[in-house]
């Protein structure tokens, strides 16, 4: 099991052919209280960098981008009733969607935990 990170503050948990995607603790903290999440439909093909979900805080809406190319397997239905899971457990129960890994080479360009930590430290 490997976790990778994007510059858009998403995490990608890779388990073989599939990946689980969510937003990082840094991202949920920056967004504030999450009140709504719009998730992609299962079966949708997404390209790396494509808008595929929306996360709304009290204040504003933000896009979530596909961290890699692949096909959406499922969205996290628990977020429909309890979007605040993204705040309370961003890298656990507050995951956004699962997808296939369409192009494993793209994973090499994502950051590991240490690199992402350094990236966030550079933003503050």
């Amino acid at each position, binding site marked *: 099991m490997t976790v990778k990170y994007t510059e858009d503050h998403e995490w990608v948990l890779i388990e073989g052919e599939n990946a689980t995607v969510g937003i990082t603790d840094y991202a949920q903290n920056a967004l*504030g209280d999450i009140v709504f999440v*719009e998730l992609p439909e299962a079966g949708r093909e997404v390209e790396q960098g494509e808008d595929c979900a929306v996360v709304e805080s009290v204040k504003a809406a933000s896009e979530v981008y596909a961290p890699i190319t692949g096909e959406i397997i499922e969205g996290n239905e628990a977020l429909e009733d309890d979007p605040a899971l993204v705040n309370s457990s961003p890298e656990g129960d507050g995951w956004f969607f699962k997808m296939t890994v369409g192009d494993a080479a793209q994973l090499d360009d994502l950051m590991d935990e240490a690199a992402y930590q350094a990236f966030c430290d550079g933003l503050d």
Partner: protein
Amino acid sequence: MSEDLKTTPLHALHLELGGKMVPFAGYDMPVQYKQGIMKEHTHTREACGLFDVSHMGQALLKGADVQAAIESLTPSDIKGLPQNGIRYSLLMNEQGGIRDDFMVTNRGDHLYLVVNAACKEADFDYIARSLPDYELELLNDRALLALQGPMAPVVLNRFAPGIDQLIFMNMGEYDIAGIPCLVSRSGYTGEDGYEISVPADKAEDLARKLLGEDEVEAIGLGARDSLRLEVGLCLYGADIDETTSPIEASLNWAVGKRRREEGGFPGHGVVMTHLNEGIARKRVGIKPLGRAPARAHTEIADQDGNIIGEITSGGFGPTFQGPVAMGYVKHEFSKIGTSVNLIVRGKAMPAEIAKLPFVPQRYYKG
């Protein structure tokens, strides 16, 4: 922080309290503190919140018969305002649009004015230019704090006994913890509460004393916006502007009865036409029927897909526990309960025209 941003006398306190600072109307202001907007909003409705609104413009307007003079700029009845009474008023343009909304207090031989931060230079310039025989004294050496929520009178009474008897939309001079203040029973949250004009060099001292009370938490601009939206109060620049008449904006109550007949304010002709012949569009409450908030500039469509209006303020209402919005629709769609669609990210989301406010206003009327 960008170097050209201004700060209020409470800036250091905001940083100390962990405020998340953002640029707002040229000031470096806290959008929220550590608790976050949701908790800050709820705390204000249930207990008491302290807001720094020192970025707003405060001024005194002085001169003979100043009540009559300001009526040449606003459709409000100011001459009929009792001593220390406060009125929500509008500065108008010749086209019947709104230059700004502001608060006017009748202090007898002068008026106390509070205008929006983003408009204050333009407003004060306009008032001074329009009323050259009157003295406009800018109160740049005063801060403005708002203490809002059901516990506000209980808290403030500990520092200024008797202040709980002040009536909504009235002002008085009080020593709060020994600091001489000008206090209004008013606010922008729909809750009972006060707005306190305090000398800038005493503002931090007063804020710390109020925050030292168990019921009081510091509240940022984020919750200020969600609180005012839930109770249907307009945000200048979003819900009203130079292109919206008071009648289109459903602010008919801000146009005094006597003033309708007498006129004598900019845009009177347009206002009377809108009153007598009707309006093409109207500001209404809009309730999205799903969970997704609809933000400002979201298009509103009828059942056939024709665009009939636009959201001007929208978000999530923490007390209402769902999305809330307001905006303008064509007059024929303005009846409460009318079904409309909101075009959010290219999809039509069902919504209905709703009664404002979404959450009841709770004021102390004696």
